[in-house]
């Protein structure tokens, strides 16, 4: 089987990550429970005629894909695989609201056309003229991991040589309000960087697009190698036991893990799995977290994947991400663990190239 490499990365998030020459040097903090993205100038990348029908999620996805392809020096790819939890939720809200407000009359086509979950993948394919495999995974908070697993299998089996993958989700005003009503969003927060100190239920919500080109050949731009990925919808054993099983299945030991990247979002009701790993199995391993930077959304783990890629390539870890006081300075194996509200757990293992 062939190896799988992360050959380029691109991120649009609540931090200024679209500038890939920087690495979380300048941090944006928010006194809000819903974090908007720091947007690049979309007009630099998308023609106005095309952009006028695109909601933010599509623009983020299209621009992040362009940045990732540019870094990998690729004009096209063999496949496009996207993960999104809610798809183009803004246009979905617009279309459904129009149905209700206008008593099922006067339905306009644009928001309907743009509201499907696979709109981002379709727009990217149209833009670069990719007629290859195009798939969108809508698997809640395992959506990005599902796209990664699909790409990994295709590349390992030599069914494709270059694949664009991405995780993208946008905030929709109405959907966010509903999450607030059921306390999935924190009631308030003084500083979004302090989510783990909040001791309250709910998360700080966010949005973003994190895209990557994967290939089965190493390049000068390569960030890391994808070693393994495993997902669990619900837990049938303890998270520590599953972590041990996963690491053993990759033929390494716990001690080989140099860094654990955890998806803690500061929800006291559901951070227990993270706390179990950080205080027991990986108590002696350096740990980082990231949802205080990007907020929680179904594909927030793609921001963690971006963070892991940057750390492995640069062998440098931004202070703002540190979760404990262990200070290893070289990183070979990085393990990511994510879950949302006690479901859709995932482990991803990356290795330095």
């Amino acid at each position, binding site marked *: 089987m062939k190896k799988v490499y992360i050959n380029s990365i691109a991120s649009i998030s609540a931090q200024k990550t679209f500038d890939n020459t920087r690495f979380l040097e300048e941090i944006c903090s928010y006194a809000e429970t819903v974090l908007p993205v720091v947007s690049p100038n979309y007009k630099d990348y998308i023609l106005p005629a095309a952009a*006028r*029908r695109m909601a933010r999620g599509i623009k983020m996805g299209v621009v992040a894909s362009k940045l990732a392809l540019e870094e990998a020096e690729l004009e096209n790819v063999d496949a496009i695989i996207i993960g999104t939890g809610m798809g183009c939720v803004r246009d979905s809200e617009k279309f459904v609201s129009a149905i209700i407000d*206008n008593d099922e*009359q006067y339905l*306009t*086509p*644009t928001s309907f056309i743009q509201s499907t979950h696979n709109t981002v993948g379709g727009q990217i394919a149209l833009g670069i003229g990719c007629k290859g495999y195009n798939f969108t995974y809508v698997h809640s908070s395992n959506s990005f991991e599902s796209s990664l697993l699909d790409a990994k299998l295709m590349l390992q089996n030599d069914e494709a040589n270059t694949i664009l993958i991405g995780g993208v989700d946008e905030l929709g005003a109405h959907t966010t309000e509903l999450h607030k009503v059921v306390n999935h969003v924190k009631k308030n927060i003084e500083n979004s960087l302090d989510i783990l100190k909040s001791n309250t239920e709910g998360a700080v919500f966010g949005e973003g697009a994190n895209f990557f080109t994967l290939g089965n050949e190493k390049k000068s731009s390569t960030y890391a190698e994808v070693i393994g990925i495993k997902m669990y919808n619900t837990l049938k054993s303890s998270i520590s036991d599953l972590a041990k099983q996963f690491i053993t299945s990759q033929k390494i030991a716990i001690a080989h893990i140099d860094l654990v990247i955890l998806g803690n979002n500061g929800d006291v009701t559901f951070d227990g799995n993270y706390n179990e790993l950080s205080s027991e199995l990986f108590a002696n391993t350096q740990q980082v977290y990231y949802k205080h930077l990007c907020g929680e959304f179904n594909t927030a783990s793609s921001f963690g994947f971006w963070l892991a890629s940057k750390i492995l390539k640069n062998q440098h870890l931004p202070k703002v991400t540190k979760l404990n006081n262990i200070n290893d300075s070289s990183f070979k194996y990085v393990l990511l663990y994510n879950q949302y509200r006690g479901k859709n757990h995932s482990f991803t293992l990356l290795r330095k190239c």
Partner: protein
Amino acid sequence: MEALKQELKENIIEQLNLEDISVAEIGDNDPLFGDGLGLDSIDALELIVMLDKDYGIKLTDPKEGKVIFESVEVMANYISANRKK
């Protein structure tokens, strides 16, 4: 008639998300499709819905739109003669 033309220009900009275009930039006789504003077939569907919703005019044959949507001037004349709202 002038008020209707102004209203149409504002609605076209809003409905079709023409973010970079102002009312002053749309001439009464500028072609809306092709070389003018560069609208396309999806925009034509949006305009058909707008005529129905805002003015009570139902276009049963979409081909009629080709003539009616020639310019803001032509649209305003058609709406004045046929509006039910």
